[in-house]
């Protein structure tokens, strides 16, 4: 059973087409890595999966993205989509004016859930899930901006998880982190896989090989190859993929 199906997805910035007719299927509770050279459209592709692309002025999308049988573009509201398909960004972006506590439950509190007991429970559970609880449980009132880069990114993951998304999109989540913090985030991804389908864009192919079950290679806005990670990294079918992952591009 597929969690998310991408059907003939194309995307534009103004008149420039950046994604060309992409077809893909993401199995449930797996980690799917999207790899490709810079500017190939992999981040745009990710942003099309939870309708973040349309926030960019002049951006346009065609095709279908089907979540559990419902097209997120024609049958769902953008806000509903983004709650079910969470997102973590390249640069940690905790809300600087909010405490750690408020950051975690921002998505719930600002939508009107004010029951202190429920929120307390969620904060503790989510921070434990991302392994931040022991580090910050004594000063949840501190500003999220005061944490280290790695902690900030885990806080952002906790924030994305607080709305219980079924799919989590991650846009190069470790690219601004040091190796130790990256390793923690990677370990976290392996744990999150138990409940969530994770789509991760990464420019680090070793990372893609380490953490993903499936890998898609996108080049110049086209899906070149998609398959099990082991297959892709051991014996890719397409010479372009081969060239990219062996580092012999251009």
């Amino acid at each position, binding site marked *: 059973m597929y969690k998310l199906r991408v059907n003939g997805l194309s995307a534009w910035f103004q008149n420039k087409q950046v994604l060309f007719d992409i077809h893909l299927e993401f199995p449930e509770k797996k980690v799917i890595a999207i790899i490709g050279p810079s500017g190939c459209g992999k981040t745009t592709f990710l942003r099309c999966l939870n309708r973040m692309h349309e926030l960019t002025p002049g951006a346009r999308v065609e095709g279908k993205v089907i979540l559990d049988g419902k097209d997120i573009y024609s049958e769902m509201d953008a*806000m509903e989509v983004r709650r079910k398909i969470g997102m973590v960004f390249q640069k940690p972006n905790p809300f600087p*004016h909010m405490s750690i506590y408020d950051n975690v439950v*921002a998505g719930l509190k600002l939508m009107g859930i004010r029951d202190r007991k429920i929120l307390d429970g969620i904060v503790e559970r989510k921070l434990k899930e991302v392994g931040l609880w022991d580090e910050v449980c004594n000063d949840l009132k501190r500003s999220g901006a005061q944490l280290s880069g790695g902690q900030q990114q885990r806080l952002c993951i906790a924030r994305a998880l607080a709305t219980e998304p079924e799919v989590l999109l991650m846009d190069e989540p470790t690219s601004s982190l040091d190796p130790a913090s990256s390793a923690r985030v990677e370990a976290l991804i392996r744990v999150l896989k138990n409940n969530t389908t994770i789509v991760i864009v990464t420019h680090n192919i070793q990372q893609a090989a380490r953490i993903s079950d499936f890998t898609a290679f996108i080049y110049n806005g086209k899906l070149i190859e998609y398959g099990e990670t082991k297959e892709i990294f051991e014996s890719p079918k397409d010479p372009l993929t081969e060239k990219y992952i062996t580092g012999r591009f251009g």
Partner: protein
Amino acid sequence: MNLRKIKNALIRITSTIVVVLITIPLLWIIFDVFIKGISVIGLEFLISLPAPIGEGGGIANAILGTLIINAMACAIGLPLGIATGIYLSEYSNDSTFSTFIRTIIYTLSGVPSIILGLFAFALIVIRIGHYTAIAAAFALSIIVIPIVAKATEEGMRAVSIEIREGAFALGLPKWIVVTKIILGVAKSSIITSSLLAFARISGETAPLLFTALFSYYWPRGINEPMASLQVLIYNYAMSGFEAWVIRAWGASLLLLLLVLFINILVRRISTR
């Protein structure tokens, strides 16, 4: 070769002298106001009403009046200014309409305050039939609007795209993202601009001359003429009575301390 160096040295010396010279009036004003004003300041001065012509008395009603008028001006100007700033930053899509509004705000910020006073007079005082603090607050609010609108727009535009996207990715509707996240992050620049606007209108006198006018009594209601520190300074200073002139200096000291305090405070906040 030597000539070039001499020229350079000359410019250095001249510009240094000019900078030293320009600090003289600043220090002079502050010292002057302080020395002449301090003698009259006391509890009596701060809590009692003005005495009959030329006899002294206090300025309590003027202090209260300035605060009331400022509060009303902020109550009108801040929401309008902030709302316009939000609109320009988040909802305008840089259309011709937003350029139009920006031009209006820019132009409003350049309109002499005395004209705003006349506008309030023509619009409100004439229609109501008597001088009123409401008209004064309305005139001053037009000074507040451009200051706050500009700071709000700039403060909100400065909020990074990452923060915005982080908020949208949580599935929050735009108006929540705007009010709770972007406005929250830009809060400090809006607060500082509001403080600066408050300091600015505390010193504005011309708009009050034809609106709130003046009163020798405690404020009785907002729809009445009302005393203010600024007009008191003007009236007393121009009266020529020694007892009043000295009280004008005392009021000036209070006003100067308030304005300088807010300005220095704001600099501290914004450079931190």
